[in-house]
């Protein structure tokens, strides 16, 4: 028998039907948020019920405020934002969908909470109403984002029509250098293959670097697969995965259930000799702390480098893209990245708001004091509680950082948290698109440690120097 990839095994186990090369795939779990209002409106127009409400999970994250939560939903100042949160409560109640809502002790971001709850498991097919659903692939699942119409379809049928993507394996071997984070790896990958570098592909991340990585780190990597254009990203489950899942509320119970699950999980990883459509290889030892300087995540370089000069661009198209990017970002060609002064720092988002991210930020923060406003927004109430148990909040607050309540916050800038025009932010989020963090805002993507270091210095700095 030919050797199979993990992607093919999971894909094949979800095929319900085929029509001329379009495949109807069964969906194990659907993840939605307040912005899924368009999907609920479509269900209503059709007078359509939700087919499997217990396989749909809802999260209040995009629109929640990250301060003043003690005032409750009624305390949300802007009517339109408050109404989004209320509408989600009403819609999920109407359809019998589990909501990790405003007051729920498990509230948090839709890519942080499902792993914490054991909703995310190896071998599943997970559809999310958000492009960063690729995050869940860190457990050895096929997980991808979709728009409102496709999510309406999933809620109405528990299935989705898809065409099989090509397969790309990204192998990184070796030990990460001191001060290098999973975020630096994925930014280095995107800088190498480009923001469109994996359009139409499913990525599998393989190699000793990922094998040695925590689940938190793997989630950061898979999260940004979409920023290279991929349909999804995944990493084979292993003992690290199983140890993480053990005892989570929706995970299989130890004993017969766990053993049955384990039998399936152990058969998931890609077999030796399986063929991918493309292979990309990076050496972990060559990866340095990364900083983006432009308006999409491929415009990134090592912190020791400089803002590139459009005159040196490889072709005319890149030259014009770089020129426009530098103009929007207000940067000079050739200036050192460490000379870029920042106005604010944001540590949070579905990319980097897990406990390890908060620990990394606190480890740096305790060496100084923030000289610019610096927010830390944990990804969930559980992350927040764990960080407080470890005293990380106190370290961060003592260093002048602001410790806020969980949500998407300044990554998607839809809840009122946003940059002012022209403000420059060192951000641990996933998109440095124009206006992403607010009209006119300028975003530089970095790891949590690099963001904290920038907060202490007021400009980008090599966190490895600071930690010496």
């Amino acid at each position: 028998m030919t050797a199979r990839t993990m992607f093919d095994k999971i894909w094949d186990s979800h095929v319900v039907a085929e029509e001329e090369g379009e495949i109807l795939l069964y969906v194990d779990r659907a993840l939605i948020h307040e912005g899924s209002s368009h999907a609920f409106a479509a269900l209503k127009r059709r007078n359509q019920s939700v087919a499997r409400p217990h396989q749909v999970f809802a999260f209040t994250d995009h629109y929640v405020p990250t301060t003043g939560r003690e005032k409750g939903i009624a305390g949300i100042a802007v009517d339109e934002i408050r109404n989004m949160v209320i509408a989600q409560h009403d819609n999920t109640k109407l359809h019998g969908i589990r909501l990790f809502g405003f007051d729920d002790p498990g509230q948090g971001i839709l890519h942080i909470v499902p792993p914490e709850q054991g909703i995310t498991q190896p071998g599943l097919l997970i559809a999310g109403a958000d492009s960063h659903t690729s995050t869940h692939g860190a457990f050895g699942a096929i997980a991808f984002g979709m728009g409102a119409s496709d999510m309406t379809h999933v809620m109405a049928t528990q299935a989705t029509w898809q065409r099989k993507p090509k397969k790309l394996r990204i192998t990184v071997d070796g030990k990460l250098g001191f001060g290098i984070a999973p975020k630096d790896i994925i930014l280095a990958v995107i800088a190498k293959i480009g923001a469109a570098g994996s359009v139409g592909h499913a990525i599998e991340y393989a190699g000793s670097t990922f094998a040695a990585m925590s689940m938190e780190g793997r989630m950061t990597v898979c999260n940004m697969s979409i920023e290279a254009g991929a349909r999804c990203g995944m990493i084979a489950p292993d003992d690290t995965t199983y140890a993480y899942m053990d005892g989570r509320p929706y995970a299989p119970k130890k004993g017969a259930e766990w053993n049955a699950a384990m039998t399936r999980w152990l058969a998931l990883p890609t077999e030796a000799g399986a063929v991918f459509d493309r292979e990309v290889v990076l050496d972990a030892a060559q990866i340095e702390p990364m900083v983006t300087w432009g308006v999409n995540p491929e415009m990134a370089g090592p912190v020791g480098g400089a803002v590139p000069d459009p005159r040196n661009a490889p072709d005319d198209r890149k030259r014009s893209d770089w020129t426009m990017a530098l103009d929007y970002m207000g940067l000079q060609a050739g200036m050192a990245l460490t000379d870029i002064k920042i106005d604010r720092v944001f540590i949070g988002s579905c990319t980097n708001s897990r406990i390890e991210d908060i620990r990394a930020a606190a480890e740096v923060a305790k060496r100084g004091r923030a000289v610019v406003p610096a927010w830390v927004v944990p990804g969930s109430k559980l992350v927040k509680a764990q960080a407080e148990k470890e005293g990380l909040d106190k370290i961060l607050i003592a260093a002048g950082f602001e410790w806020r309540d969980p949500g998407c916050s300044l990554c998607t800038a839809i809840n009122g948290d946003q940059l002012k025009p022209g403000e420059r932010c060192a951000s641990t989020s996933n998109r440095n698109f124009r206006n992403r963090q607010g009209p006119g805002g300028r975003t530089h993507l970095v790891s949590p440690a690099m963001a904290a270091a920038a907060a202490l210095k007021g400009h980008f700095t090599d966190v490895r120097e600071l930690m010496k």
Partner: protein
Amino acid sequence: MQPFTTLTAIAVPMHEANIDTNQLCPTRFNKVPRGPKYREILFYDSRFKPDGTPTEFMLNAAPYDQSGIIVADRNFGCGSSRETAVYALYEFGIRCVIAPSFGDIFAANCAKNGLLALTLPEEECAAIRRQLQDQPGAKVSVDLAAQTVTDVQGKAHQFEIHEVRKRCLLEGLDDIARTQQYSGKIAGFEAGYYKDRPWLSARA
């Protein structure tokens, strides 16, 4: 869904690569219910200054305020899965985007809303954009059944499209109704699937 058959319309060239859905519909407008308001939302932060007055952005003035087609560069519609990006294009009057590649989710969202996201090779897109640059306001024609784009100079470019997507667009088919014909198959699939995975059904 409105069927898509043929279209002859003013085509606007957009030379930049990686135009993301945040630009097509800035995040703060995602909460707007679907409807004509999206006409103004398209490329809002490029089209309007912070005080709300219009900028020089090309979609704001003739001939491009009447555009029905965008000819773009690679990875158009990358980023966020927001379908509001498609609502904005649609309400503005855009029915077709031609590009060397698209964000996968965006392309799927287009198909669900009667908007044709069609792929032509990079050089052909660049050539059509140059023609449009030379003749602002020129029209381009698209024939979905024949799978051709006819450029400003009358040259036909053949494009590929998946048969199912083509049929759904031509007929304006609703895929939920299509899938409901499979409800028996889905139930049958579930029976086998959960028999082998009792830990999932226990809490499903």
